[in-house]
């Protein structure tokens, strides 16, 4: 299916409203927000303990990623050559469909009936699980959050915390039902019990799966390796136990050298979870050697375009620097009012508001670039300095250039623009609007219903103006 095919981004407005009213979701988000924000703040502050400076590191990380994005084709060729030399296979995929075809083909050629998966957002872009199931291959998500989401028949609502939208009670109910046991009363101290329960189920899958599918946080050009940054250990199992390991990543995930990778690792975990380093950092190169006892017999890289190549050299090239830490959504007031599902496609939050229109069609996600207060809390924390609000602005401009905005909006803006350029008329009208608003107000000076802007007064009053404009009063004062 094409990327646009499974996007629900056109229904953002309705989905957002539903999510704002979803009490369970709001409870879950309320809990998560201070954790994300607080942990990152601590992690960044702790850089000083190691004699490191955030601004300097950020500039260095930005530069590394910029260097790659500027010459993406060259770095990809180097990576492909080194990866092949180490014994891995390298395949290319234009879009999600091609990812699915490659994976199913590899599975069939290797007699795979079950694939264990470590987190991969690319496989969400491709809707790989659906394709595998349809082909008779059982996909099993092994990241705890992804496992929960898969059991629930949902999609991840956050790129590093896929089940952040779920409350403890919801997970308990889900596990009881799907693991065939009685429902129990749970508090947060029981979370390790639930984790152990999932672990026991997953262990069997790790041992029986013939294929492991993972993403990669980075591809290292000089060594032809995939770098995996994880916390749960499932990534190690997925990438070493099954006989076949398939790595699915976007073509923009390249970094030139291991040293560059080390630099990026200073900021990636800190930006994501506040950790100075994740529990596991794996560098996966080639296949199991003749005298080695661990690792896959076959390693296949699937390097995916799915809209990325078109961004290189465009107004949106900055977006290709993204290292998927999630800090933008973790600091977004809009994301934390809605959760990720409202955004309608794979990537939520500010990064999604930019990527979804670019990867699924600008005309298929008209609300997303507007779903921002412009606060720039995202841009301020981005470890690779992506100007997310500016990119959203650029998308809004393209919507205008292509006449994709509603006619009523275009007419209103044009009328307002004409007035703003004709001060005499503008004054005349604002004087009347000021009086009208005053007239609408109740005794306490508040407007409770404003027909012109029902979106405002549904949840707020509008403090009424005194009835005369500044320019009117100022002119009177000067005459006096």
């Amino acid at each position, binding site marked *: 299916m094409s990327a646009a095919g499974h996007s629900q981004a056109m229904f953002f407005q309705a989905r957002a409203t539903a999510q704002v009213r979803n009490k369970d979701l709001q409870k879950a988000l309320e809990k998560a927000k201070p954790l994300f924000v607080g942990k990152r703040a601590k992690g960044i502050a702790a850089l000083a303990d190691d004699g490191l400076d955030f601004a300097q590191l950020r500039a260095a990380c930005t530069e590394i990623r910029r260097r790659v994005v500027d010459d993406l084709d060259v770095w990809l060729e180097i990576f492909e050559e080194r990866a092949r030399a180490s014994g891995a296979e390298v395949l290319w995929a234009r879009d999600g469909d091609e990812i699915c075809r490659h994976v199913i083909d590899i599975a069939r050629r290797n007699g795979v009936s079950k694939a264990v998966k470590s987190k991969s957002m690319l496989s969400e872009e491709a809707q790989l699980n659906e394709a595998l199931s349809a082909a008779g291959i059982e996909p099993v998500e092994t990241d705890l959050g992804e496992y929960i989401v898969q059991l629930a028949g949902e999609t991840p609502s956050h790129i590093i915390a896929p089940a952040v939208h779920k409350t403890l009670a919801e997970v308990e109910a889900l596990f009881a039902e799907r693991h065939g046991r009685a429902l129990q009363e749970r508090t947060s101290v029981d979370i390790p019990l639930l984790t152990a329960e999932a672990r026991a189920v997953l262990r069997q899958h790790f041992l029986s799966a013939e294929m492991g599918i993972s993403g990669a946080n980075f591809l290292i050009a000089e060594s032809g390796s995939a770098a995996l940054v994880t916390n749960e250990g499932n990534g190690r199992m997925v990438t070493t136990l099954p006989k076949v390991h398939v790595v699915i990543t976007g073509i923009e995930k390249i970094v030139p050298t291991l040293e560059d990778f080390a630099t990026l690792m200073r900021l990636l975990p800190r930006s994501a979870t506040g950790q100075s380093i994740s529990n596991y950092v794996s560098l996966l190169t080639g296949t199991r050697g003749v005298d080695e006892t661990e690792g896959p017999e076959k390693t296949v890289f699937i390097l995916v375009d799915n809209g990325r190549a078109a961004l290189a050299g465009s107004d949106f090239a900055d977006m290709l620097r993204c290292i998927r830490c999630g800090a933008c959504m973790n600091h977004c007031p*809009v994301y934390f009012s809605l959760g990720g599902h409202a955004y309608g496609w794979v990537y939520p939050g500010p990064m999604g508001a930019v990527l979804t229109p670019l990867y699924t069609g600008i005309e298929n996600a008209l609300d997303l670039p507007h779903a921002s*207060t412009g606060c*720039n809390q995202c841009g301020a924390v981005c470890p690779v300095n992506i100007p997310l609000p500016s990119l959203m602005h650029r*998308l809004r401009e393209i919507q205008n250039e292509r006449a994709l905005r509603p006619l009523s909006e275009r007419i209103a803006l044009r009328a307002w623009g004409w007035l703003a*350029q004709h001060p005499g008329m503008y004054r005349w009208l604002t004087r009347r609007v000021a009086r009208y608003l005053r007239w609408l107000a109740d005794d306490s000076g508040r407007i409770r219903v404003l027909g012109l802007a029902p979106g405002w007064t549904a949840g*707020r009053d509008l403090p009424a103006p005194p009835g005369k404009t500044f*320019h009117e009063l100022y002119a009177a004062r000067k005459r006096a």
Partner: protein
Amino acid sequence: MRLALFVTCLVDLMRPEVGFASLRLLEGAGCDVVVPPGQTCCGQPAFGAGNRVLATDLARQAIAQLEDYEYVVIPSGSCTDQIRNVYPQLLADDPIWAARAQALAARSYELSCFLVEVLKLEQVPGALAGSVTYHDSCKGLRGLGIKAQPRNLLASMRGMTLSEMPDCEECCGFGGAFAVRFGEVSTAIVDRKCESIAAAGADAVVGADLGCLLNIEGRLRRRGDQRTQVLHLAEVLAGTLPK
């Protein structure tokens, strides 16, 4: 020194007292203040909506109206951000206007910045017995680096205590058209701001952007808080508080 006051369209329409408070502060400090006629809007709504052509036309209009003054002072962080940071970007490729945009940007100041950085004001006419909490609006804070200036001015006032709210740097959910387009989302965001304000327990919340203040006041009142005053920094500093 001769300076222009750009009152902003919101102040003009919704809270003219903020314009007069700004005048009082600036004139009180010995400035010769002109309110250039013909000023309407800095063009933010057009820029926000993605209408670059209109935003650029309005930028040219504002530049032509304001460029003949030594300084331009604006009682709003977001309008100042538009003039300082966005105008030069909108006109970067225009051989004539690029330099004019940059020249104006360099001389345009948000009110509290101007009072502190240019006038080096240490005393303000206002007096306020009670506690206030300060909301950092986004464009002022992240676009212009306004953080200490308003607090220093507030701290200079006798009888006033500053009680910081948790998450004072968090967005209030206004965002211009966003507040109307995504009313419920905006309300959910401002709800969190209202809770922060309540946690500060201050008599008044003070800010430097009228859009944020209308949003915050509107939500506080709807939630049933009739007590917490919502004040523009200019009003507090000038001592021209609404009754």
